[in-house]
């Protein structure tokens, strides 16, 4: 699959340390809008850690330290002039466990637009809430109970609510950290379908344990092992004809 002309985000020689321990070694990777990128690899390989460097969520961990350069549209997100709050509005994130706020469905979606001042009137906000829920594939299920608590939804609905919440602030990149690992197969299928629909509009990076899922939803796959990026290429290449033995062993289930 052809690499698109200009990458949305690119990382160059990124190292991440937790205190003395190095979690990521020298990773360079490009992410673009046309393709869904999957990060795969065994537990503890650093794929989630690396994902969290892309919107600086590692800043919340006191001992974490990031070296190297990560750019969003050519601008280094670790430069001192970068507004982290603004960055996270542009690079949204969906977590492993659905984490809706203990507020109504409406307020969950309206949370981001409100704090970023995206809607001046109630009517504007209503439009954003509806369109976000539609894009998250949740509108038909919840349109009659927007005032109900977001935590009262099923696990799969909660995760789609969280995706809708991320979409509502019109991000450019959406990071998903094993978004289906707490869901049943039907809910998982819905999320995967949703990822297909969102592709092209947002640059999507998904961390997953499930190799079938990576094969189903992504166009490009990066295989991490022991904190290094072993191989990065088109998903079909990685799964049918990996260059590296380690990738092949992992994909064929030799370890991991």
């Amino acid at each position, binding site marked *: 699959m052809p690499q698109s002309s200009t990458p949305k985000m690119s990382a160059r020689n990124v190292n991440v340390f937790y205190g003395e321990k190095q979690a990521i070694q020298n990773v360079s990777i490009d992410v673009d809008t046309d393709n869904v990128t999957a990060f795969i690899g065994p537990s503890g390989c650093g794929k989630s850690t690396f994902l969290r460097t892309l919107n600086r*969520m590692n800043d*919340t961990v*006191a001992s974490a330290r990031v070296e190297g350069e990560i750019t969003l549209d050519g601008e280094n997100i670790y430069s001192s002039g970068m507004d982290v709050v603004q960055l996270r509005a542009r690079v949204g994130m969906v*977590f492993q466990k659905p*984490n809706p706020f203990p507020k109504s469905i409406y307020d969950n979606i309206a*949370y*981001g637009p409100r704090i*970023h001042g995206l809607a001046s009137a109630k009517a504007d906000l209503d439009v954003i809430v509806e369109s976000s829920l539609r894009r998250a594939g949740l509108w038909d299920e919840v349109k009659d109970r927007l005032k109900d608590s977001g935590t009262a939804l099923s696990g799969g609905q909660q995760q789609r609510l969280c995706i809708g919440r991320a979409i509502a602030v019109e991000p450019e990149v959406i990071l998903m950290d094993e978004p289906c690992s707490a869901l049943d197969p039907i809910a998982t299928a819905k999320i995967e379908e949703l990822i297909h629909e969102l592709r092209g509009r947002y640059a999507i990076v998904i961390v997953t344990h499930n190799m079938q899922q990576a094969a189903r939803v992504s166009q490009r796959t990066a295989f991490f092992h022991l904190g290094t990026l072993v191989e990065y290429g088109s998903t079909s290449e990685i799964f049918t004809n990996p260059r590296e033995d380690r990738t092949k062993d992992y994909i064929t289930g030799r370890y991991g």
Partner: protein
Amino acid sequence: MNGVAIVTLILGLGLVAWLSARAKAVRLAPAPSGGASRNRSGRPLLHSLPVYHGWYAALWVLAPALLFLVIWANVMPGLVTERALQDSAAAALPIDAMSRSAILTEARNVALGNAQAAFDPRANALIEPYRSAHRFYSLGGALAALMLAFAGGAFAFTRIRPDFRARTKVERVVMSALLVASLIAIVTTVGIVGSLLWESLRFFAMVNPFDFLFGLKWSPQSAAMGYGNEDAFGAVPLFWGTIFIGAIIAMFVAIPLGLMSAIYLTQYARPAARAWLKPMLEVLAGVPTVVYGYFAALTIAPNLRDFAAWVGISNASSESALAAGLVMGVMIIPFVSSMADDSINSVPQSMRDGSLAMGATTSETIKQVLIPAALPGVVGGVLLAVSRAIGETMIVVMAAGLAANLTLNPFASVTTVTTQIVQLLTGDQEFESAKTLAAFALGLVLFVVTLLLNIVALHVVKRYREAYE
């Protein structure tokens, strides 16, 4: 026989029983050598370890004998008196119950060595019968206790067999001992509530409960001086003073400061800073309330009065609601802070991450996500703090004053329920008057209110805990 000696003797017997029963059990047990763990040379293994057999025997020696001694110590005085009265010297006693018992008490005190000599000659005549009766019964009791100890020990000793389940029996004794320990606390509480209720009922027999709960004038002194109970026991000024100081002024200090320090400690402070600041804040909770009391009375109150006079408030008192309330608020800060700390910490990290990942700042996250999610816990903490504040005594006794004013002026002197209870019950008081009994009625009201607050608070906190676990 001397009480200490007999108890020591029984304890010694218990030790002997422990050692010998254990030794017997060890003899019955197969030697531990030789790998094969069961039925070596046809002998069955001990069901319980030897030490349990030891405890079993020791308990059989100790429990019945000591229990008997406790009962005997309570029954014996009556028996001794009974026997002493059968003596011929008792015939000279007056029939009048009061002087009769006075003489008997005198005789007993001399007989037991608590007094040098009796005042009344009739008591002197009773000393010797008393002494002999006492000797008779204490010796009898001691012998009975020893016999019980021996009997218990012998019974337990004969039951030691390899398959005897001493371990289970000891477990049952341990369980009942723990049950008794917890029952004592419960029974004590019930007793306190019972006496509170009983004395309050006596008070309400003299004063109309409606007048007490809704009356606006509090002057128990006038009732004591014989002006009658009407209009003297209206407790509303007290209730107001308590609420004004404990639930309004103190909470104005404690809620914002406690909450903000909890937010700082949980959200902003670095781990190293938190490790220092949190224990230091908790030191506040360890300051004796009397120290807060004189801080309020000697430092805060005069300064507040001067300040009020300087601002131009004419009737400022040197004992003000504000002084007591401010200091009480400071005292309560650690409670509010640690409850808020707990409930903010128990909001899942994923909630906080979710908000931060949306591009919210830390303070937006706190305001919009953490506080609403932690609110029930915080409210529960505040209710507990209020219940503590209104029951607090030393600060208000020292700083709030005694005048039962119904006022909104924080610089005026007000009085509280606890202050008045102290006031009503200190000094020489006759116990039958409405004035002293009013203290019980006030105590009952305070108890009911704090109980309700605690129940509501714990319920709120519990429901909140369940939501996240």
